[in-house]
């Protein structure tokens, strides 16, 4: 465990990596289809709410020092609850990462490898997971720290590279589909901040757990800024009133960037960075899944699991029959799945565990 400890900066990068990854596929489009021109306002509104939730999570975790949500579940309801919560979070990490991987690979196939079977595109990611799972958690996080600045730079470059093509009028009508859709039903867009789930698992890995508050709030703020940049790029660049689904909207946005006749076709560079980002995301979710499983089964070493979980990701990624099934799952199932697990279940467990602790203290 000693070599698994990470600094607060690394922890922030790790959490934001989870935020960022879904934007590479269809997240900006899903947000825009829910709240249309009001998406930027909606994101700022959600950013404030998620910052408050992150603060609440920090306060709730504070009473449990370096325990993660699996340990807290055990404290709350014994091994049965620990296994149930562990199983749910493993399912959450595996299913969401499988779907993201499949969706990204479908885009990769359309853009670069039209003659290659989807399995062949998925396999390199799985091999990468085999290798990274053999390494320590801190070396995984160090890899994330190398990729993270590139990803952030890429999205800022994407935004400013397309600046001349923007129509700022597209931010209007200011309330999009209406007040209710922006601020009430628009709360559903909170699924975009699913990266907050890392907060439940990160305390045991922190070198300095006292910086949890700083980690929670900074990662949400950086994540929010990142969302604003990518959503604004798609919103201000493309017409959205008629829904034209694009496989990778940010990739399409990248193809519009040209600096004279010499600097063109920069989308390949963006794709390279995004492949690394997807790899980093898969690496983190895989490590969390393995760590949860280890806690559930009390096995001593993680290495025997390092091949099983990537294969599980591959298997689930291959399940959807075609792209329309993936999009259906993404837009109609996963958003609610994420909200239920990350924002309802996670916080409920923490609240109940805190109540139990309070009760015990009184006794």
């Amino acid at each position, binding site marked *: 465990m000693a070599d698994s400890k990470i600094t607060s900066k690394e922890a922030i990068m790790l959490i934001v990596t989870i935020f960022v990854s879904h934007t590479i596929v269809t997240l900006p489009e899903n947000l825009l289809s829910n709240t249309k021109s009001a998406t930027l306002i909606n994101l700022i509104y959600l950013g404030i709410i998620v910052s408050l939730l992150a603060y609440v999570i920090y306060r709730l975790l504070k009473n449990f020092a370096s325990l993660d949500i699996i340990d807290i579940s055990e404290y709350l309801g014994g091994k049965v609850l620990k296994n149930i919560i562990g199983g749910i979070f493993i399912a959450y990490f595996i299913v969401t990462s499988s779907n993201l991987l499949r969706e990204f690979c479908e885009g990769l196939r359309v853009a670069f490898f039209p003659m290659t079977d989807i399995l062949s595109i998925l396999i390199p990611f799985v091999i990468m997971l085999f290798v990274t799972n053999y390494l320590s958690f801190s070396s995984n996080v160090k890899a994330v720290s190398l990729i993270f600045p590139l990803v952030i730079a890429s999205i800022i470059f994407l935004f400013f590279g397309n600046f001349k093509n923007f129509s700022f009028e597209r931010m209007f009508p200011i309330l999009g589909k209406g007040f209710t859709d922006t601020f009430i039903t628009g709360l559903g867009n909170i699924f975009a901040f699913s990266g907050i789930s890392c907060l439940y698992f990160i305390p045991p890995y922190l070198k300095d757990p006292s910086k949890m508050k700083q980690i929670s709030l900074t990662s949400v703020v950086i994540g929010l800024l990142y969302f604003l940049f990518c959503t604004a790029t798609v919103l201000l660049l493309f*017409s959205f009133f008629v829904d034209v689904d694009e496989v990778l909207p940010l990739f399409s946005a990248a193809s519009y960037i040209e600096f004279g006749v010499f600097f063109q076709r920069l989308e390949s560079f963006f794709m390279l960075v995004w492949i690394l980002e997807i790899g980093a995301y898969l690496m983190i979710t895989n490590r969390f899944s393995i760590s949860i499983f280890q806690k559930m089964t009390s096995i001593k070493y993680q290495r025997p699991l390092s091949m099983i979980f990537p294969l599980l990701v591959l298997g689930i990624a291959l399940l959807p029959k075609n792209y329309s099934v993936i999009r259906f799952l993404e837009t109609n199932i996963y958003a609610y799945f994420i909200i239920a697990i990350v924002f309802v279940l996670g916080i409920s467990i923490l609240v109940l565990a805190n109540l139990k602790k309070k009760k015990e203290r009184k006794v």
Partner: protein
Amino acid sequence: MRHLLKVLCFAIILIILTVSFSSSFTRVNLDNIAVVVAIGMDKADNNNLKVCFQFTNPSSISESGAFETSDSVLKTVTAPSISSAINLMNSYLGKELTLAHCKLLVFSEELAKSGIGNSIYTLMNDAQVRPSCNIVISKTSAEYYIDNSEPDLEPLLSKYYELFISSNQFTGYTANATLGKFFDNMICQSCDPYAILGDSENIGLAVFREGVLVGELNATETLAFTCIDNHLKGFLVSVPNPQVENQNIDIYLTPKRNTKIDISFVNGSPYIKIDCRYSGQIYSMTNDSNYLDPDILEQISDACNRYLRSVFTDYLYKISKEYKSDINSLGKTSLKLFPTIEQYEDYGWREHFQDSFFDVNIETNVKSSSLLSDS
């Protein structure tokens, strides 16, 4: 032993990946592809399309690798759709067409009048076609247009297609009309698409409404379009000389700032105020010119204002009343007047644009002549 196992694993992975991805790489191998630089589409019998493809000629590349001439090959097929035409051409050439370097899409006027929306959707759906590809509506057949596009001053055909409208930034006689922009304007509810009008010279614009060609703009009208759309860095106008009757004076105008567009609604109709500011430099010179006199410069500025106001107003009423097409995307400015999309859609900008009335304000400040100021 452990090291050997690692090497073996690495070798197996490398072989698997090489085999898996080889089909995609073989497809884009230079030996197997035919590079399309322009596509032309004409109407054919039985709802078919006559699609011509212009390729770069590999023989025009010298042994040193440098391009010597702009030789090209033009091939035509007839098919029900553009995808079928590409497929047919693949079979005909024994090579796979790559549209990644396609710089020009030409549609004949006849085809554009019956609508090119579906072709645009198909082309945007193709991952190879770039959104920066220019769209030209040819007054003649598309095949004839492409066949007669012979660059005089540019050795490379693809470069010529990329740069041939670059002069629009300082003439305003045509505009940059790309596939991405056309598609975006086509699906947008507050704008309409436009394309370059191609004839013996590429001057003017083709005006569309929802993917159907509805009219065309001449050079002066296109100048008005580009000015309002902030495409221009500068342009030359010939305005009536306020001091000498029946004589024009050439002035080069540069925008001082972006055009200001303000929209309000009067009895449900859009009232559109357009405010443009230019600074000018006189190009014409005669033996009795005196461009140091502030009163004369003031008179010339007024002449410019009157001239441009008349050109812009005529242009705006033409696109709204005659073509009913908002190619300047003026409707986007009106978006801020509606709190919700539902209210905007209920209003129906497209239907009301034809009821628009315009108030054009031009403020020109002619500052000086060029090298000579007094003669």
